[in-house]
């Protein structure tokens, strides 16, 4: 009789695996989500186009031609047709990625830092400072965001810088509000109390204890704003308030092609399709990211 058969099998020792940590877990979850991966790929492609635009364009995006105006999609040499001045649509759409993404993302990045700082300060210190900051934020909240953006850039006048300032002003209060609410939630936790008891100053506590706990939610909320910002930024250019011609930007292209919707309807709708693809990709990615971050385990 073979005794070894009776002996219980030694339990397989699981290889000690380092826990991936919270952010690692979030990353893993996103990687297992096919929709998130698909939209992330679209966004990466757009970003690549934004960087490589001038070297990747097949034709000349600035050469105008009286004879080649408003050619339909599929014309020889102009795969996506030509615009109202005879410029190659494909090249302009590709080159336009750079300015359009820049106009849409920059205000959100500014708002993340400015609004985040304002909100964390208001939330951490509380008291009259909080009241002062948050009541001011409430005033800006009392305007619908499209109206606020148009009010500011309407008063400031057209131009890239003015549009960026207006959009930043629109998003700062929104980020500040979220930052304030998450900071208020953590400011009275025991570990903050402990840090305070150890004699750490306010700045040190914010840097070492608060930020790590609030940056995640603020970041996720801010990524969700990119989609709106893309639509608003292009909307300002569409109204003639943002980018000025002849720079290629999708909103502005949509504006100048508006007169052509009866002659070349589908060519004139192309820039809007680019705005839509960008906006929905950022929206879905932010949504998926939020879902992946929701369960802390």
């Amino acid at each position: 009789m073979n005794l070894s058969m009776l002996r219980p099998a030694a339990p397989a020792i699981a290889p000690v695996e380092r826990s991936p940590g919270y952010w690692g877990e979030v990353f893993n979850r996103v990687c297992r989500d096919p929709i998130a991966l698909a939209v992330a790929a679209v966004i990466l492609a757009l970003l690549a186009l934004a960087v490589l635009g001038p070297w990747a364009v097949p034709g000349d995006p600035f050469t105008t031609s009286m004879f080649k105006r408003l050619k339909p999609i599929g014309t020889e040499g102009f795969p996506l047709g030509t615009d109202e001045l005879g410029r190659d649509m494909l090249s302009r759409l590709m080159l336009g990625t750079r300015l359009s993404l820049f106009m849409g993302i920059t205000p959100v990045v500014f708002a993340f830092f400015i609004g985040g700082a304002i909100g964390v300060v208001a939330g951490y210190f509380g008291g009259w400072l909080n009241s002062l900051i948050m009541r001011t934020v409430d005033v800006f909240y009392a305007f619908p965001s499209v109206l606020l953006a148009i009010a500011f850039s309407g008063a400031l006048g057209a131009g890239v810088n003015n549009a960026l300032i207006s959009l930043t002003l629109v998003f700062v209060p929104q980020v500040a509000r979220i930052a304030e609410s998450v900071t208020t939630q953590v400011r009275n936790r025991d570990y903050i109390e402990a840090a305070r008891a150890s004699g750490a100053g306010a700045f040190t506590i914010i840097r070492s204890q608060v930020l790590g706990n609030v940056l995640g939610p603020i970041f996720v909320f801010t990524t969700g704003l990119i989609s709106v910002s893309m639509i608003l930024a292009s909307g300002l250019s569409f109204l003639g308030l943002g980018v000025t011609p002849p720079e290629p930007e999708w909103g502005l292209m949509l504006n100048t092609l508006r007169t052509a919707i009866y002659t070349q309807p589908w060519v004139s709708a192309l820039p809007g399709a680019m705005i839509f693809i960008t906006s929905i990709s950022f929206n879905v990615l932010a949504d998926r990211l939020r879902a992946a971050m929701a369960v802390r385990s």
Partner: protein
Amino acid sequence: MLAYTFRRLLLATPILLGVALVCFMLVHLAPGDPLVSVMPPDASEALREQLVKAYGFDKPLPVQFGLWLWHALHGDLGMSIASGRSVASEVFNAVGYSLRLAVLATVIGFMFGSLFGFVGGYFQGSWLDKLASACSAIGVSVPHYWLGMLMVIVFSSQLGWLPATGGGPMGQSAWAWDWAHLQFMVLPAITLSVIPTGIIARTVRAQVAEILAQEFIVGLRAKGLGEWGLFRHVVKNAAPTAMAVMGLQIGYLMGGSILVETVFAWPGTGLLLNSAIFQRDLPLLQGTIWVLALFFVVLNLLVDILQTLLDPRIKRG
């Protein structure tokens, strides 16, 4: 309840003041002399002085603000620089058009949004839910000015079913509730309804999912209540929030329809703002934005109070 309403009104006062201050500052935010747009380029120094006095620009800013607010509260928003007419009457006319459009768009959005939301909440995770979620994601992230252009391309240019632009038949300036006028409203209203549809669908879906997970649903099921009876309970519980979101959407659309109104040349506040911007008509810009923001704040307040009336569980401070 009365005390609550009063407290809400009191809390809204500083916000209303702040809103007025922001609108007032818009004119001073504009680069250069605020008078440049009013004066002829070759104006003499004497004329300039006279205008500065007439507009009150020689007084200190706080005094100017006080005067502006005082006049504004009495319905005097100044004169439009471009047309020379009173800003208040121009805005009043345009608000009517914008409000009609916003209300119709919100009603359409509420119908489709609730439908998608209920379907998504009831059949969570099914393909129907995914379809509804996809529709609401599209609704929130489609550039509505582009959607408007697509509408014009398909329904006006290609099919020729509906007029593309304008607020009524040629040569008629007054609004009437007949098909001749209403047909101008169809495309902009559908375009504008896409945003509230997406937002209401998301809210309702989350609400329905939350309600269905609660214990009283299990209790009602255990007691033998049929699916329809259960549905009534879900609707009753989801309604206050959905209505609140719908009310707020009217305000958002009033202020946010400028792009859509521009595409369809709908003679509302959006088109007014657009012309104010391009003619550098700052009093008109300022007045229109103030009225729209005021509308938004008051609507918020009303929704808050009504919601507390409908659902006494929420007495928010």
